[in-house]
């Protein structure tokens, strides 16, 4: 018999918003959440409830943790970056200082960090860069040379350029419209950067298409890709089975795995990118328990 894996500690806290500020197209919130701040590591996320306990918007919204300060002036704090794209996220960005939000975390698996001081490239698409600065600091503490690539459609959709310059050895910016940095995509600059730095690991966080491209490039240039995915989640804690995606396991078999507990960080070459169409993932025919003729 194999036991279900032991699961990391997690907290549910009613957190006070102590700061909120606009950063380009995004809102940066600081929450007093001491337990989560104590437990979290880069790459993990938090799930926020929308509205109060009688809210008609039931499903939590998940955000990667931008930063934690375990012993701040107000007690431990957790910072997140939110893009208001629907009613739930609009409610969250409308929170004022001293408002309370219900937070669960830290959730999911953190970015694995190399045991040796190997050069690393960190790639963030839009506000997907949020967890990378914290990761960069940890990697540099371990003696890794760290370069960052920040890409977005336009300058206002970049997040953390100044912070990147502080926390990394080198920063490259790309925008689709050329409003900042190189005109083009992160995939245009990534191959040379991997070659120039001799990077052993490429970390990525952003849209699925970008993560696939990072994985391809890293593979061709001799680096391992570690990517944090953004899947639609209902619960964030592993019980609803909605955030699944096809991933190859250690046994070589593809399974539909929950990105909230087995991710959000996956080795890029384990993800079955061939099964994705935009953000929709079909079940590969060779996946364990895939539908037979006639379907489910």
């Amino acid at each position, binding site marked *: *018999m*194999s*036991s*279900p*894996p032991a*699961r990391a*500690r*997690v907290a*549910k806290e009613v957190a006070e918003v102590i700061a909120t500020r606009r950063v380009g197209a995004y809102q940066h919130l600081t929450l007093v959440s001491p337990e989560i701040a104590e437990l979290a590591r880069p790459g993990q996320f938090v799930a926020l*409830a929308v509205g109060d*306990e009688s*809210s*008609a*918007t*039931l*499903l*939590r919204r998940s955000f990667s943790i931008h930063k934690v300060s375990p012993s701040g002036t107000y007690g431990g704090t957790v910072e997140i970056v939110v893009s208001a794209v629907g009613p*739930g996220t609009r409610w969250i960005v409308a929170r004022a200082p001293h408002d309370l939000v*219900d937070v*669960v975390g830290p959730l999911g698996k953190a970015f694995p960090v190399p045991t040796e001081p190997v050069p690393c490239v960190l790639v963030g698409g839009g506000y997907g860069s949020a967890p990378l600065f914290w990761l960069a600091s940890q990697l540099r503490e371990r003696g890794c040379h760290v370069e960052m690539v920040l890409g977005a459609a336009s300058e206002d959709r970049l997040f953390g350029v100044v912070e990147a310059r502080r926390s990394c050895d080198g920063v490259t910016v790309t925008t689709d419209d050329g409003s900042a940095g190189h005109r083009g995509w992160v995939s245009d600059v990534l191959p040379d950067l991997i070659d120039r730095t001799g990077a052993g690991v490429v970390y990525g966080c952003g849209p699925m298409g970008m993560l696939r491209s990072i994985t391809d490039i890293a593979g061709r240039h001799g680096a391992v890709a570690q990517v944090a995915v953004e*899947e*639609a989640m*209902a*619960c964030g*804690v*592993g*019980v*609803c*089975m*909605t*955030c*699944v*995606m096809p991933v190859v396991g250690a046994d070589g078999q593809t*399974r*539909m795995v929950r990105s909230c*507990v087995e991710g959000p960080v996956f080795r890029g070459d384990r993800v079955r990118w061939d*099964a994705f169409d935009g*953000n*929709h*993932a*079909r*079940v590969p025919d060779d*996946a*364990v*328990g*895939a*539908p037979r003729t*006639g379907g*489910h």
Partner: protein
Amino acid sequence: MADQQSDKHTDDRIDLSVDLGYGKVLPNPLMTASGCAANGAELHRFFDVSQLGAFVTKSVMADPRSGRGTPRMAETPSGMLNSIGLQGPGIAAFVDTDLPWLASVGARVLPSIAGSSSTEFAHVAATLRASRAFAAVVGVEVNISCPNVANRGLVFACDPGASAKVIALVREQLPRDVPIFAKLSPDVTDITSIAAACVKAGADGLTMINTLLGMVIDTDLMRPHLGGITGGLSGPAIRPVAVRAIWQVRQAMAEGRIPVVPIIGVGGVRTGRDALELVAAGASAVQVGTATFNDPTAPVRVLHELTDLLVEKGYQRFSDVVGAAHGSPLPPRPVPVDERSRA
């Protein structure tokens, strides 16, 4: 975390016990709802799952199932649609890993079983019975809201004959002292006729209700939002449907059209007050489902809220409030002739 409230699954102010039949007595009426709690380990990080009256597992079928592609979920007002496609490890892995784990933490388990054919249901039940952790099983929930491949995918629960066949075969596979509960779909013309067929075929109780079939269209793509096109609607939005279904079946029991068996209420319960509504309609136990996605502690929170509410209302036994909204306890007392004429 877990042990702070470990003494709270019973309460010295009120007798919360629930008799499922055959000597299977639960310390309290709160349960998880199948498919909303995985198989326990995830929620055990938030509360001790042995505090619940019973833990209802995700429906398990004979073989491993990948489930459907994504998107599998759409948020709706006070609810959500899901189209998971019964993803699961298969019964062999379930009895090897999940059930022993639940037993090891002291949970009372109500496994939910499913199948694409009545023989698959029977095979799953037989494997469960033969498993080494079977002692933790306090009953079996039979999820008959699955497509029947032999009948062009019509769900068993929409057809009294198909429902009865599954229930009879599962009943044969399990020891007499393990009650089985048929989980009914509200998407039928007359839920009492399905309930009657299930009880007649050997169901020792009924779980009501499963999700309602729904659909959402993505108006940007002008396509169905879910990978599975249609999905099951759940959450507080469907609570009145659950209350209605429980009421109707309880009423049919009172009228002698269905033998009296325990009803497990499920559908849109988010608070202790919501749970009390289902209980007053006739439910002897209550499951918390979609609310768990909003609040991972919801099943135990609802237990504590329900307990406080009943104590506040002056009840000393939970069983006294079951079906209270019908005005008369079950089974119906023989009514004297003069009272009858007054009515």
